């Protein structure tokens, strides 16, 4: 079983800074961490590999050289290796452009049976990468899974959907997006910690995955953030102080009727 886990380095949320002009996240200098759901995706991938009786788990990350730190966390719990896609050209990519990069990199890895990733990233918060990658690779998608297991060449997952709790089955190759509640992540052992320390990740550029710079970054994106604003404040409430509760309710009802609320 050949599995790729997509991970992302995200800013620690409480320290988010925004560029006032581009409205993009200012990543330089902000404390960063592994996107929490992605670690659970790595754990799920390791479990599936074990259930399949062997294979490899490769961590794939698009990001800056600093992102290798979060990739090491996945190596520590047992992932075999990892690849960093790093190229100045991807700056400003939305999910449309990012999906192209990740799908191309997975194609280059080749022969992948399953792609695992977190249900969404903390910073972008869209959850659009799993279906985008699945579509580009022609794979099924099991999204927002609460549990996942492998038997007879198929993955079985449970998830909430608008009509209830579903158990779905899909054959490989398949993309799986994992909830944070899906599993408990194992503690790194000594061997894992050693591997995480000394692992060297190959770095791929856009040229390595056959993508033209204009296909990604802001020119390859389909959305444009134009404005950031504060949440609308609720209009200041009023306290109704009638002679007693009944009088206050009566006054309230009159007001609501005059405003045609009731």
């Amino acid at each position, binding site marked *: 079983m050949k599995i790729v886990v997509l991970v992302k380095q995200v800013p620690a949320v409480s320290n988010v800074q925004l560029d006032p002009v581009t409205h993009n996240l200012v990543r330089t200098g902000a404390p960063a961490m592994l996107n929490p759901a992605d670690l659970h995706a790595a754990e799920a991938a390791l479990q599936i590999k074990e259930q399949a009786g062997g294979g490899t788990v490769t961590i794939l990350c698009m990001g800056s050289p600093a992102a290798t730190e979060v990739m090491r966390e996945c190596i520590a719990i047992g992932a075999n290796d990892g690849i960093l896609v790093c190229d100045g050209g991807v700056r400003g990519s939305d999910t449309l452009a990012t999906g192209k990069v990740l799908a191309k990199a997975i194609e280059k890895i080749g022969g992948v049976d399953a792609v695992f990733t977190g249900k969404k990233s903390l910073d972008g918060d869209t959850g659009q990468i799993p279906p985008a990658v699945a579509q580009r690779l022609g794979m099924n998608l099991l999204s927002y899974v609460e549990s996942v297991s492998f038997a007879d060449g198929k993955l079985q997952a449970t998830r909430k959907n608008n009509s209830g709790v579903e158990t779905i089955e899909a054959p490989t190759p398949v993309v799986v997006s994992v909830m944070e509640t899906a599993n408990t992540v194992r503690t790194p052992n000594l061997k894992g910690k050693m591997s995480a320390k000394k692992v060297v990740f190959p770095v791929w550029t856009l040229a390595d995955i056959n993508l033209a710079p204009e296909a990604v970054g802001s020119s390859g994106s389909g959305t444009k953030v134009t404005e950031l604003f504060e949440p609308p404040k609720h209009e200041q409430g009023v306290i109704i102080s009638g002679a007693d509760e009944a009088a*206050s309710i009566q006054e309230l009802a009159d007001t609501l009727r005059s405003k045609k609320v009731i």
Partner: protein
Amino acid sequence: MIEKNNVWVFVELVAGKPSQLSLELLGKGRELANAKNKKLVGLLLGDKLQEAAKEVEGYGADIAVCCQDSALAAFEGRLYTKVTGDVLKKYEPNVLLIGGSANGRELGGRLSAQMNLGLVADCVDCMYESDNDDITWVRPAYTGKLFVKIFTTTRPQLATISDKIFRGNVFDASRQGETVVENVDLGGLTGTQKILSLTADSSVEQPVSEVNLETADIIVSAGRGVGSKEGMEKVQALAKSIGAAFGVSKPLVDEGWAPHEWQVGVTGKKVAPKVYIALGISGAIQHQLGIKEAKVVVAVNTDKEAPIFQRANYGIVGDLFKAIPEIEKQFKPKV
């Protein structure tokens, strides 16, 4: 004949009927279509669509486009994307609204990749702000501290929409719409996914015979201030007598007085009534987030420092039990 540049809504079916979220989108879609003098088109995929199409028209669509095939009976991303993509290429809508359910998000992400379209996730508002056909999408960002406005630079404009944001239209059985049946070409794709089981989720299902919290115009909710299960039942009786849905805050569920199905809040139900009457609810932030989309919040509480008064449009500092008889009198529907 369907013109280009209309407003389209993807109508997700649950057990053969449009989902609650789809009805909310038809409500918003109607507004967008009216703003630009365009038609509202509902897009349906499934195996039997005739009845659902009528419903979609009754809920505000001018046209229901039906893609009918036994392979589309259950949602499967690759197939739904192929069929939807073909329809979008043929009719070139200005915009397609998709509900932010698990399936809707999958469809959105796949369409974006398949057709190279920009896609905005989990919008909480959208509008035409200028003379051109650009939609301004609004979504929360950075854990809800801020909102962003986003444009999609590609056509059709594509976004998924959060639930409980928009109100659907009232069903009008006499509304006449046009049903257009499309030829479905799966392009050789076959379904490989299988739903092995589907159990009703207790946090989704509503006990029968209760007024549905998710669609109610008025909700009366009880909090810790009721003091006892008997106290809670008085509030419940009030809700019933004025035809309102009944909800509770988390402490009453924790006490075992009420089932989780009745809980309003982030770990319970998010609600969007016209009027939310909070009786004896202090208004923890989790509860307030659950009533974020309520139009008018009324709170009765003996504690004038209760946080609910920060959120309430109208607050009454007093005893909820003394308020109940007058609420019953004032809010009872006139017959």
